[in-house]
């Protein structure tokens, strides 16, 4: 299978640095350095910009604690899928643009000293779509957490299943849920964090099923696309439809957490969830 993998250059070379970013919510012009210091949250209106996988990991984990696992997983093209360009070209472009091999990164790390398994998604990689690589990484993260007896945290950011892998992408819903069911049966905690957006098949599998579900404010969270929903049914959408606060009101999100508080609150929840008896395949926790 011929596929060129990009060299992983510093992304400074790929993107000319802009000094300013316009907030899509309040339209304020924001100095990038300032935005970055504010964890990519608009200091003026609180709009939560999307985060890259590495930014997310750096914001959540103790410095230097992250060890990536299974970095070598890459997508192939089981269907020979071509739309306006071939699927492998889309993957290659996304790799080039993000410096990632696919839309999820998983590994182990520490949060306020607690060892956890963590998987974060990157919307920048083909809309965070879930193909076999994302599904495989979620399953391995769950199996890794089970093996080591440490909690699992997943930060979702995804438009759903990756169409270019057809029903094999759909089957990742089963793969991930089956692994999570084993984690639950072994009483190993799992916390789901939903960021903007968490939709389609990712919401309809692991993202919805945390022991505790956290969400960032105003994130788009839903199953059916608003276009599909409104178009098919011809109904007006309720206000705030498919936003974090809507999901919270309807009972599917435990807490809406500002990004600035996320690390601390996640750690707090994990401290409560940590079983009083050892669990998982080993009780060994470092």
């Amino acid at each position, binding site marked *: 299978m011929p596929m060129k993998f990009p060299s*992983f250059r510093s992304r400074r070379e790929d993107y000319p640095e802009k000094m300013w970013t316009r907030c899509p919510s309040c339209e304020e012009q924001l100095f990038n350095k300032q935005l970055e*210091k504010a964890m990519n949250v608009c200091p003026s209106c609180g709009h939560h910009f999307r985060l890259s996988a590495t930014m997310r990991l750096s914001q959540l984990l103790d410095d230097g604690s992250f060890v990536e696992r299974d970095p070598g997983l890459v997508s*192939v093209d089981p269907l020979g899928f071509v739309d306006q360009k071939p699927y492998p070209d889309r993957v290659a472009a996304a790799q080039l643009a993000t410096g990632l091999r696919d839309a999820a990164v998983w590994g182990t790390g520490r949060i306020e000293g607690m060892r956890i398994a963590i998987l974060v998604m990157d919307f920048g990689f083909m809309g965070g779509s879930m193909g076999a690589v994302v599904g495989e990484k979620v399953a391995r993260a769950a199996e890794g957490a089970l093996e080591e007896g440490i909690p699992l945290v997943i930060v979702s950011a995804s438009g759903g*299943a990756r169409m270019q892998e057809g029903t094999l992408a759909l089957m990742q819903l089963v793969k991930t849920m*089956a692994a999570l069911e084993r984690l639950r049966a072994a009483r190993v905690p799992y916390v789901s964090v939903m960021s903007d957006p968490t939709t389609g*098949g990712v919401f309809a599998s692991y993202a919805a099923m945390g022991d505790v579900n956290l969400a960032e404010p105003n994130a788009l969270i839903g199953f059916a696309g608003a276009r599909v929903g409104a178009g098919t049914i011809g109904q007006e959408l309720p206000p705030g439809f498919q936003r974090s606060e809507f999901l919270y009101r309807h009972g*599917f999100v435990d807490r809406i957490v500002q990004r600035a508080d996320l690390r601390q609150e996640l750690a707090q929840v994990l401290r409560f969830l940590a079983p009083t008896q050892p669990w998982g395949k080993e009780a060994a926790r470092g």
Partner: protein
Amino acid sequence: MVDRILGRGREAREGHEGRGDQAPDAPAADPKAAVWARVQLARNLRRPRILELLAVIADEFVELHGDRLFGDDEAVVAGFARIEGRRVVVVGQQKGADTEENVRRSFGMPHPEGYRKAMRVMELAERCGLPVVTFVDVPGAHPGPESEERGIAEAIARSVGLMSRLRTPIVTVITGEGGSGGALAIAVGDVVLALENAVYSVISPEGCASILWRTTDEAPTAALAMRMTADDQRALGVVDLVIAEPGEGAHADHAETGRRLKTAITEQLDRLAAIPVEVLVEQRYRRYRSLGAYAELAGPAPTPPVPPRGGLADRLRGLIEAGQRAIPAPLPVGRRDEPPAREDV
């Protein structure tokens, strides 16, 4: 480099166009038209669904109603059935025969309570040690706001999780349209059968076309690209066995279709009944654990190093200690705020 499943994908691409000529109105020479003809057959309004099939297959049928939480969704039929003496629990989507019935059954598109009814009845099957047989034919879960409000995603996720660990045999038959998550929610099985003209896809061809080709006119192109026919799905390993339809298709002969299905289902039930339940559940886990094609490269971690935490103090410390650590710039934030491709799954 490991390329675990790719072989099946290749097979799908090369081997199975041959049966396209069975589809009426579709010259074998045009694979796109052949696939599209099958999509139309799968959607044929006279195609038999769970109730029509049970009328042929089952000696006895007792429908159970309600999710014990909110309502009884008539887009999902669930209950006890007896198939040549074998007691089973059956679950399937059901459309209406006329407009009035279609309204009552939400045109066969289940709300969360439909899947929650299915879960309740499948858990009952587990307690009683009855095998589960599901009949899958659905354009997709109901996409309306009430469906979202009551947690259609949660219902699908939970049902998929439940079926993945249910301690009783599950035989799934894709009888018509296997529409994405709304199909999958009752389609996790030890063995997945499909009728010859059934289709199975991660998104409707129209939805796929409108996202990737920016026009629903390309739906047949999308249908071909997604390899959604029963034969293609078998080649991918998603479907285990394809059951030939009689004559012009299942819609034209419910009785014969039912008889063929009955033979296939009873064979599978008897085969699965011989497997100890621990082994069965482990095999089911492995079945889904191995679906999906990827490669695994050796070599150094490609993900950019994780910068130190972004809290203000840390950030300042980071700036002060500059040079000691590599702090890559975050991705430009603007392009991360494009609207997502919402119709996925």
